[in-house]
């Protein structure tokens, strides 16, 4: 079909789209911000309630972020705010993008840096030595460790006959296709680990499995990482709600609360208290 035979209404629509794009909506902005992760808590800033406001004026967008305390680590604060600006700037049809961090001890420094697109070093000057890549990588590794522990603990809970050390033999293909596995695969991919079915689940940051004698300790250490991240995520949610009453309605509950208790699936022998 040639353009000459195109119905007039369709042609008019195409023409209209070409010169007058769909206006940006708040939904578009929030969906974009869904991909901005708090590196420390391993959750989207939208789920945490960190997005305080979205204001659209024509094609321009202004987003304000808020954090649980004035003294949240400024490097993480900067990472989230600059990631937010990056994902919004990448939106089609967007005009001027303004991202501001409210009520932080370094709000002035961070907001000026963001407005000027000064980058990390340009924002923090003498306090910035090189970049935040290694910091981000450190927390991507922790996020993987925690996801690994969640999957393996769930695996053990579902198989009461298995000894703890049996996790050494668990490969990705053994895990049920659930949200825990999806989260693990995503975090493995982020730090460059294989996601094939035959890959071992319990691995160190470089993807190497542990020797048999270290398996229990490795799982135990991974557990302390998971507990730490979960605990921080809950505390930060609570503090945000205390600091900004009403912000709790913007928060999605953290899913780990839904884990089955260990006792529901395993037998144990507990020590008696003397």
């Amino acid at each position, binding site marked *: 079909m040639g353009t000459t035979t195109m119905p007039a209404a369709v042609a008019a629509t195409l023409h209209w789209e070409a010169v007058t794009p769909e206006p940006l909506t708040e939904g578009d902005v929030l969906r974009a911000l869904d991909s901005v992760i708090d590196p420390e808590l391993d959750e989207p800033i939208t789920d945490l309630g960190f997005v305080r406001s979205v204001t659209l004026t024509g094609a321009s967008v202004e987003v304000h972020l808020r954090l649980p305390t004035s*003294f949240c680590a400024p490097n993480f604060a900067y990472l989230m705010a600059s990631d937010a600006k990056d994902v919004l700037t990448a939106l089609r049809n967007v005009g001027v993008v303004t991202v501001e961090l409210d009520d932080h001890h370094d709000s002035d420094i961070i907001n000026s840096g963001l407005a000027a697109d000064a980058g990390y070093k340009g924002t923090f000057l003498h*306090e910035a030595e090189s970049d935040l890549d290694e*910091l981000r990588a450190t927390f991507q590794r922790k996020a993987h460790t925690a996801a690994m522990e969640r999957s393996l603990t769930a695996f053990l809970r579902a198989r009461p006959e298995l000894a703890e050390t049996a996790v050494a033999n668990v490969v990705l293909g053994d895990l049920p296709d659930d949200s825990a596995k999806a989260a693990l695969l995503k975090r493995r991919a982020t730090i460059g680990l294989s996601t094939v079915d035959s890959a071992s689940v319990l691995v160190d940051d470089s993807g190497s499995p542990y020797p048999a004698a270290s398996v229990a300790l490795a799982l135990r250490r991974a557990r*302390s990482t998971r507990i730490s991240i979960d*605990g921080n995520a809950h*505390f930060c949610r609570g503090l945000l709600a205390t600091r900004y009453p009403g912000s709790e309605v913007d928060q999605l509950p953290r899913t780990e609360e839904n884990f089955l208790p*260990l006792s529901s699936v395993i037998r*144990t022998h507990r020590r008696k208290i003397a």
Partner: protein
Amino acid sequence: MYQKDGESYFIVDAHVALWDARPENQRNIHGKQFIDCFYDYHANLSPASEKWPYEEYLYQGGERFIKDIFTDGYVDHAIFQPAHLGEFYKTGFGQTEEAFALTQENPGRLTYNHNFDPRNGEAGLDQLRADAERFNLKGVKLYTAEWHGDSRGYKLNDPWTYRYFELCRELGIRNIHVHKGPTIRPLDRDAFDVADVDHAATDFTDLNFIVEHVGLPRLEDFCWIATQEPNVHGGLAVAMPFIHTRPRYFAQIMGELIYWIGEDRIQFSSDYALWTPRWLIEAFVDFQIPEDMTEYAPITIEQKRKILGLNAAKMYDIPVPVELQLPSADETATGPRQPERADLAAV
């Protein structure tokens, strides 16, 4: 002394403060931001009956301190751990003169620890010598996130910090309490990184390093370091009040600590005036690891007695009535304690 169900508990509150965060003492907006952050911690984690109005939270004074700690709070001995925060407060956050006067008025019940800042160089070393003599220092409180001119933090393994540790050793200051606040320098690294404690503890094996908040928000890094260094201890400041709001999380913290560092190296504190000791002590004595958390053994009464006071009393040579003393657990100096407690190992 706290008594419940025929058991007596000797109580040492190992981290208390007399602070002044009233507006007239605030140097700038950060003074307000700092106390507001503390107040949100207090408001978020306290039972409704223990929550103070904001105005009361800004300053308590000696009379209220004595009532909250000793009259109402069951505490036998409390240890001041003052944060200076000279960039935020005109006379500092911790009130040195007031706290030291109170210590002198209450012999045997209070220990005054002071602080130093390695960025004060040679002059600071002289000051530490004078402070050690005046306050009879056994310990110091270090806040690595302290702002100082254009520096916003330091590390325990900085060369100048080592100079101060060497002087501590010479002056008989053996207990180094470390508060890992959000340390901005180096900004490229994790602000709560505790790796510097590892270096310092390895190089100064004759000093005790008590990591406050048990390393939170980096419990895992703290446990990993502390399990390898026999002179690293955990202070429960800030961790304690989770016993009310998030008891299952508190149970996991306690379970992890007892597994990784053992019952002899954990110290109770209220972190007064962030919280008051009375309700924390009552709740802790009543506390038990939930039965469904089979990865952890139950906490014993003996472990609670050590954590609530005997561990800190031992570190500070605080006399404890003979009938309340307990021997140290016969545990490995390094590595996980009682590995049979490991998750699922008993299956």
